[in-house]
């Protein structure tokens, strides 16, 4: 096993910022903000380097590191826990996504956070480490630890810097996700008990290779289809909370309404993608047969998410809630891509994860800018903002278009591939699902037009347009959105080999 330190450096690079922040006095706000933003740049540079150096043809792990950490004696054996990092085509786009959103959210922090910057950025760095670590870890135990590392700082950020109902939202977030991670932990340990390994690659090999003892009916360590189905369903529940899938989504609505901008950016941009990532990596990767069996169910859940989310988004009177339900709806498309159980569908799912991550972060950033200027996010109070804030109006419309899936943007290619994958397998559900695209266009246009166009009330005439610091990340993110839209190979090629490695096992 090669032992490459690169991913460790990448994952823990925010530590530099953390240490620097700890030594800056809390009164030096400018310095704190500057360090907070600058500290998120090394992960971007390093993940771009990783992207560039990635070998497209190789399906397995790259930049892998494997160091033994400790072992816990259990019964007659030991439970060896290793420190294992690595990326493949599935996790690599998400590492890049996490670092881009990290940078974006840090700027949002500098712009929108109004007190206690030092603590904010320190917590933010811990969360960033967790986010990067979740996608780079190749070991169930490590995955769990990084997963928890995103939860706790998020709880603090929501609870300290949020709006009126912040404490309630933070508690709800913590309990829902706590239940999710508890279920996940049980499955992980139970999995270990069965296959005696914690490494993703080894577990996948053990569970899917037809000649491994776990798959031969006569072998004593054979794992029955029923057990596998049980694991699958338990994991599905855990990730459904995280993702979120209706009806386990209520924490998200409260959280997005009450959280400060950077927390919403991170959550909608990255954290809910962890659920989808887990679904692909663990549910589909480890239990392809069970996934195949439940594909119809997953697709149905996906369609419910899309339609339910879209309908609710349609009737919301609050801009943030429109976007929150829109996120729910868009995660349904990820689910559809997964349910397709073929290369195209998976590709669509990952495309949608990345695309929605960027678009949702951008949209929430825009709403925060509006809220900052007007102190309201009620649709009825807003209107005609384009007159005083033309740049913002333009970006908002563009982002909404990207979200609605306009060709030339990342949303289009994502939805297109996800539905393409599903149409092959379940045309009826796919057809119903496409209704969501129409709804999306309707509710987003309603929201955008309702805020930026129409007559401008007196009180909104003197609003300042977007400042350079706000414009910079918006343009960068929009650049990525367009880049993926016009040149999708930039995303699809690296993941091709990995996905092809998953799919033959499913027989799709």
């Amino acid at each position, binding site marked *: 096993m090669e032992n490459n330190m690169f991913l460790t450096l990448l994952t823990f690079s925010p530590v530099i910022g953390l240490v620097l922040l700890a030594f800056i006095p809390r009164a030096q706000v400018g310095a704190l903000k500057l360090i907070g933003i600058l500290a998120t740049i090394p992960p971007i540079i390093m993940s771009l380097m990783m992207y560039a150096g990635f070998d497209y043809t190789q399906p397995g792990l790259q930049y892998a590191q494997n160091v033994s*950490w*400790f*072992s*816990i*004696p*259990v*019964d007659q054996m030991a*439970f060896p826990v290793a420190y294992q990092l690595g990326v493949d085509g599935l996790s690599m786009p998400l590492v890049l996504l996490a670092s881009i959103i990290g940078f974006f959210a840090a700027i949002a922090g500098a712009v929108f956070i109004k007190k206690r910057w030092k603590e904010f950025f320190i917590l933010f760095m811990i969360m960033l480490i967790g986010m990067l670590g979740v996608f780079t870890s190749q070991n169930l135990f490590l995955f*769990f*630890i990084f997963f*928890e*590392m995103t939860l*706790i700082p998020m*709880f*603090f950020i929501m*609870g*300290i810097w949020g709006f009126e109902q*912040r*404490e309630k939202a*933070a*508690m709800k977030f*913590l*309990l829902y996700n*706590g*239940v999710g991670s*508890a279920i996940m*932990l*049980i499955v992980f*340990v*139970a999995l270990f*008990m069965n296959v005696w390994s914690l490494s993703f690659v080894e577990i996948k090999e053990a569970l899917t290779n037809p000649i491994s003892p776990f798959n031969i009916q006569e072998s004593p360590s054979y794992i029955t289809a029923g057990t596998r189905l049980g694991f699958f369903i338990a994991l599905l529940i855990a990730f459904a909370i995280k993702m979120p899938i209706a009806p386990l989504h209520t924490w998200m609505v409260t959280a997005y309404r009450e959280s400060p901008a950077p927390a919403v950016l991170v959550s909608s941009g990255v954290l809910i993608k962890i659920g989808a990532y887990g679904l692909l990596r663990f549910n589909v990767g480890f239990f392809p047969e069970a996934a195949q069996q439940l594909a119809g169910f997953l697709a149905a859940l996906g369609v419910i998410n899309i339609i339910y989310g879209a309908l609710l988004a349609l009737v919301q009177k609050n801009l943030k809630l429109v976007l929150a339900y829109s996120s729910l709806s868009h995660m349904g498309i990820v689910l559809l891509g997964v349910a397709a159980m073929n290369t195209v569908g998976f590709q669509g799912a990952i495309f949608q994860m990345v695309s929605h991550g960027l678009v949702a972060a951008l949209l929430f950033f825009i709403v925060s800018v509006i809220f900052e200027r007007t102190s309201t996010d009620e649709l009825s109070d807003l209107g005609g903002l384009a007159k005083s804030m033309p740049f913002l109006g333009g970006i908002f419309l563009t982002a909404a278009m990207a979200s609605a899936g306009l060709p030339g943007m990342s949303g289009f290619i994502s939805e297109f591939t996800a539905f393409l994958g599903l149409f092959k397998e379940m045309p009826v559900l796919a057809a119903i699902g496409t209704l969501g695209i129409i709804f999306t266009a309707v509710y987003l246009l309603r929201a955008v037009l309702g805020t930026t166009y129409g007559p401008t009330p007196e009180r909104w005439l003197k609003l300042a347009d977007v400042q350079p610091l706000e414009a910079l990340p918006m343009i960068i993110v929009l650049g990525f959105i367009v880049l993926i839209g016009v040149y999708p190979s930039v995303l699809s090629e690296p993941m091709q080999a990995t996905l092809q490695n998953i799919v033959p096992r499913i027989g799709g």
Partner: protein
Amino acid sequence: MESRWGPLAQYDWSVMAPEFTILAVVTLMTLIGLFTSSVKDRRFIGWLGILGCIVAAWFVFQNVGGGVVEILHGSFRVDAYGNIFKLIFLAGTAVTLLMSMNYIGDGEEIQHQDEFYYLALTALLGTMFMASSADLITLFVGLELLSISSYILVGIRKNNLQSNESAFKYLINGAIASAITLYGISFLYGLSGTTNIFLLAERLPEAFMAGNQFMIYLAFFLLFIGLSFKIAAVPYHMWAPDVYQGAATPVTAFLSVVSKAAGFALILRVVITSFIGVVDFGSDGGEPVGMIDEIMLIVGILAAISMIVGNTMALRQSNVKRMMAYSSIAQAGYLLVPFATFTVLMFEQTVFYLIAYLMMNMGAFAIIMIVTRDRDSEDISAFAGLYHRSPLLAIAMTVFLLSLAGIPISAGFFGKFYIFMSSLVMQNYWLAGIMVATSVVSYFYYFGIIKQMYMRPGETDSRLAVPASIIVIVVLAFIGTVGVGLVPGTLLDYIHTNFPFAEMIMAAK
């Protein structure tokens, strides 16, 4: 060689050096206290006690790895099991003394300062005897020494009504628990004619085969119920909230850590050793079933109820010490899980968790003491805005609470994880499930304090003055909690290699 002292002279008394040290220090403390009654500041008595703990710990380390030694006709036994528990007790008591320096130093609340210090040490002596006893009589003597000292410690704030009530409740309940334990012991003696636990292990199976099943089960239950008092587990847990609330905070910390650990030392040693040999072949000559297997299930159920009761009742508390009492009941539930799964590693798991518990709970109580005394309120809202008053204390408290809740990366997480895993290995899924589910419930109240510290404005923003000794405790506990969380392997390996527990259930040759 004949001597006028008889067999007494032939024992290797040096293995009892830790106990002698504590005894000598207690004596010294009373004498010094007597001759220096004019000195106003009594804290030097406490320092003497801490010094005693350190010297005793050094002697315990001398015994580590020395094999099993039995003296006093097999009733006092020095082995790995006893040694590690003694280290926990010594550390816990030293921290308690250090904590109480400030508690006692200011104000007139505790008028008998000297007594406070040496009662803590006599309680400690009791626990040390409990850890080393291989005989029911020694065991009981140790237990009573601990109990009587604790009763007085709980009531030592004699002008405080709540403290009086607590002491009274503790005394009555404790006396009943002792009586129940003793009643159980009397059955065991009646059935086997011996009080030595290794002889018991040999003779109980015979008694069992002779048709005394019911009596043996009864003895077990009486013993277990009596001892569950000390560990504050269901079914004898009701005293804990009142007593924890009424006792002086250092005493509460002592009860929750040292006294509890001592209870576990007893339960694990006595119950397992005495009952392990009892096998029920059944009336129809079917497969033999060890009595332990049946006991396991019952202990499992009690563990589950402890976790459920502790964690759900804690949700409703607004007094922080009451909340910690329910938390402590819940933790006792977690600690009983290894017993219910019964593997060769159960001692290791328990000890690992107890060490983690020692660090996180002592740290938490040190902070609770400072905060509640400063605000003159034990309500959870006393913690409001603590972060602004003393960021470091708030951060440390957060770590302790996260550790108690079982969130990585902390000692508490690994302790819980270790227990959890072993119960899954033994296919005790329901117990593991309850453990995880109640842990999630516990987030609610542990994070409730965190919420107060960071998210609520306090009545005052003035900096909180933290005495140096408390800083020492908090820093040590913090380093320990996080350190064990990052590299749990070090402590695990140390316990695994230096304290071979298998020897505890075998009689020394």
